């Protein structure tokens, strides 16, 4: 099982991503520099969190134009499993691999804390280890996680079962109270039409060790491994 982690200038959760992938796949992921034009042959590609290009202009905007992103788009079209977390999610939307955009949190503040998430579908490559409706606990750490898409897009995402994770409370209640950053319909993570690209704001890679205070994030990585083996 081979995986790769893409490194843009300003990314800072690459080691967290590597630790999680290594734990799940049993092998050391390859780190790929943004200036490269080729990707190694891998089963899983992860675009990690951080502040690519300082989050200047728009989060993820500049990274989305990096040479390596053309290669990532090509792999996406070939059906390779791709996970974008936090800044990675922003980069994937800016690159057009996922619909919508991530705007400034409604509170306008950076938010770092654990949050409950509802697993909305278990038929994806990313959630097959969870039960439908399961509530998991991952941390978030972002300033711009407020998911926006127009009504048509939202309806399509819902209709096609592409909303994978929503912000909720410990009992799974999804409402404005539990909407931590103002996202449309509490959306925390979505997949593309083909189901091989997931973008999400929360950090499953920071919930993989009992010392993190919980290991709910392991299931997401294990799901990817199951799906591609």
């Amino acid at each position, binding site marked *: 099982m081979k995986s790769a982690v893409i490194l843009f200038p300003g990314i800072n959760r690459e080691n967290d991503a590597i630790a999680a992938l290594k734990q799940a796949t049993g092998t050391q992921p390859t780190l790929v520099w943004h200036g490269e034009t080729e990707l190694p042959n891998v089963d899983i590609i992860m675009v990690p969190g951080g502040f690519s290009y300082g989050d200047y*202009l*728009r989060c993820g*905007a*500049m990274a989305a*134009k990096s040479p390596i992103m053309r290669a990532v788009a090509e792999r996406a079209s070939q059906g390779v499993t791709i996970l974008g977390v936090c800044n990675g999610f922003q980069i994937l*939307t*800016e690159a057009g691999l996922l*619909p*919508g*955009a991530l*705007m*400034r*949190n*409604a509170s*306008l503040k950076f938010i770092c804390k654990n949050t409950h998430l509802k697993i909305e579908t278990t038929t994806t490559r990313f959630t097959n280890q969870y039960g439908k409706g399961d509530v998991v606990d991952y941390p978030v750490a972002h300033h711009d996680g*407020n998911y*926006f898409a*127009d009504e048509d897009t939202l309806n399509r995402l819902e209709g096609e079962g592409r909303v994978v994770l929503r912000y909720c409370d410990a009992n799974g209640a999804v409402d404005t109270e539990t909407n931590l950053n*103002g996202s449309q319909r509490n959306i925390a993570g979505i997949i593309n039409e083909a189901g091989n690209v997931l973008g999400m704001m929360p950090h499953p890679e920071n919930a993989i060790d009992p010392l993190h205070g919980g290991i709910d994030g392991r299931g997401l990585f294990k799901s990817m491994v199951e799906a591609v083996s």
Partner: protein
Amino acid sequence: MKARVHVTLKNGVLDPQGKAVHHALQGLGFDGVNDVRQGKFIELEIDGADTAKAKAEVTEMCEKLLANTVIEDYTIELA
């Protein structure tokens, strides 16, 4: 030549920053404000004197990078 680019959120796109500014203005006692929208203003200093060419080039910059046309509109002025 100078190009002035305004990037604003499309109508119908929620503007958390504008909303917060609006709220803060009300908090400061400015009651007569009905709406606030916040956008970006980018000034570029570019080579050449051919306005048409510059316009085309800046348009391309907007499409490729400066604006996210999923949620944003842009306008270009040259001077």
